[in-house]
């Protein structure tokens, strides 16, 4: 168990990573989807019914989560593929998982020394809203909210150590 001072110091350091998360996300959307992102100023809508999760292990342990609604994910997949997939199709889930994977990889490569010392998992994609995620360790969370073609999505990094 960390002391209060250790937790505060770690949280302050981790907050410095938010701009790197934003940059990593913007680069993925610009290079792979040809899309410019805008920061989301309003709260995201309640219906965020598709979630992609990528685990990080090693020097940085945690989970990066990408959330939006399925129509937004389908639009992202369309920009990636150049063809229009069905909203519930495997292509949409696969594309959404791949976006989360690239954000996680691009983010960790931007942190000095982390490229070699942090591994990322194959992404997992969950559809629906009726679930809860519980962490079994002290967790610090960073969040980035963006608009893709005016449609909101959220990236969260839960840091376990």
């Amino acid at each position, binding site marked *: 168990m960390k002391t209060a001072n250790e937790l505060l110091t770690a949280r302050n350091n981790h907050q410095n990573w938010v701009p790197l998360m934003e940059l990593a996300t913007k*680069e*993925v959307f*610009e*290079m*792979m989807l040809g899309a410019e992102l805008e920061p989301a100023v309003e709260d995201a809508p309640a219906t965020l019914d598709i979630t992609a999760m990528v685990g990080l292990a090693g020097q940085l342990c945690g989970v990066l989560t990408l959330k939006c609604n399925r129509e937004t994910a389908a639009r992202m*997949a369309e920009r*990636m*593929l*150049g063809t229009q997939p069905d909203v519930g199709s*495997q*292509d949409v889930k*696969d*594309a959404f*998982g*791949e976006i989360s*994977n*690239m954000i*996680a*990889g*691009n983010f960790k*490569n931007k942190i000095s020394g982390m*490229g*070699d010392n942090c591994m*990322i998992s*194959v992404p997992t994609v969950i559809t629906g809203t009726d679930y809860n995620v519980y962490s079994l360790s002290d967790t610090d969370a960073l969040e980035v909210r963006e608009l893709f073609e005016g449609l909101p999505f959220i990236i969260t990094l839960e840091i376990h150590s």
Partner: protein
Amino acid sequence: MNSVSALIVDDSSVMRKIIERLLRQAGLELEHVYEAGNGVEALGVLKDNRVDLILCDINMPVMNGLEFIKALPGVENGKGVPVVMITTEGSESHVVQALSAGAKGYIRKPFTPEQVKENVLSLLVSKT
């Protein structure tokens, strides 16, 4: 440039489709495009098919990309085929490992169409 056959190895079917589209956009006339979801599947493809170029991810289940390129010379149709790694792993040590294992090119995800074009065309030109 004559038509070429390519093998795309990535556990994401979407990424395989994107890479194929970018190869066509790069001006390659693709005679055959073979796909595999991991290194073992890719070695299976090469037992029966000759290719001119392999584009390969690193992080894949069953057999990863580094293990695959190390196993490649042991397959008859694998000898001398240029391999370009396309991966989220961006550290210098990964690049060194890949190049030491025999990769001829390395592209970090996310990537631009121009990066794919430059890597692939330079390899195919140097091969001819």
